[in-house]
């Protein structure tokens, strides 16, 4: 969702991420990089629960991070006429099992030296293999955690899926990709 100031835009960006993480039954903290306030053109990142990730009990640990940036928004495309929004620049989501092996990894790192710059998925047994995907949201990754056995705070898995759809709806209106 766009915002009037860089800080507003970041708050609007973080709010649905927070709602998505709340669906998982565990202690979650979205830790944002220190850059002395938010400005356009600066690369920031958030990390879920620092280096440890989110403890999901028997399902393992959800390890998630994202780089993001404040960019111009088209004021004509949002009802408040706000000039700024946030866009993701890369993401890394994965579920690490209790045995220390990764159950899945969702990656998107378009910049830098890599032969695969589009969003992709790594799955066992060959975690080196790249399986192309569309852009995956944190809500998608939280949903994968649930499908991988993580307990949720909603009454049922179906209710959680409905909440994901509600959380993602505003984002779908404003993002520049499909």
């Amino acid at each position, binding site marked *: 969702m766009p915002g009037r100031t860089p800080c507003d835009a970041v708050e609007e960006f973080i709010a649905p991420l927070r709602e998505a993480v709340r669906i998982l*039954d565990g202690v979650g903290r979205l830790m*944002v990089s220190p850059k002395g306030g938010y400005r356009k053109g600066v690369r920031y990142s958030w990390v879920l629960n620092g280096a440890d990730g989110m403890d999901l009990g028997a399902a393992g640990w959800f390890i998630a*991070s994202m780089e993001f940036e404040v960019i111009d928004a088209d004021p004509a495309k949002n009802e408040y006429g706000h000039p700024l929004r946030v866009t993701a620049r890369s993401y890394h989501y994965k579920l690490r099992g209790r045995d220390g092996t990764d159950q899945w990894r969702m990656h998107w790192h378009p910049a830098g030296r890599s032969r695969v710059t589009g969003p992709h998925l790594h799955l066992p047994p060959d975690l080196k293999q790249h399986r192309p995907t569309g852009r995956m949201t944190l809500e998608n990754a939280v949903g994968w955690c649930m499908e991988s056995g993580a307990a949720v705070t909603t009454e049922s898995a179906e209710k959680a899926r409905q909440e994901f759809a509600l959380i993602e709806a505003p984002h779908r209106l404003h993002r520049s990709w499909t």
Partner: protein
Amino acid sequence: MINRTAYDVEVGEMSEQDAAEVFDGITRRELGIDGPEFLDRWDAGEYQSTDRDDLDGLSEVVAAMSLVR
């Protein structure tokens, strides 16, 4: 079964010290070396010709560099 979490999800800006510790934790988790050592190797060009997907964990560490730089 209803699993109600007793916790809210906090959102907070890290201090520079916290960010350095988180970065250090990520480099140890992914590459088995500490944060300063990774940065020294990075600055020396050690990873310049390494595809990010050829070394497990490198892409996560590179993305996390914005925590400290």
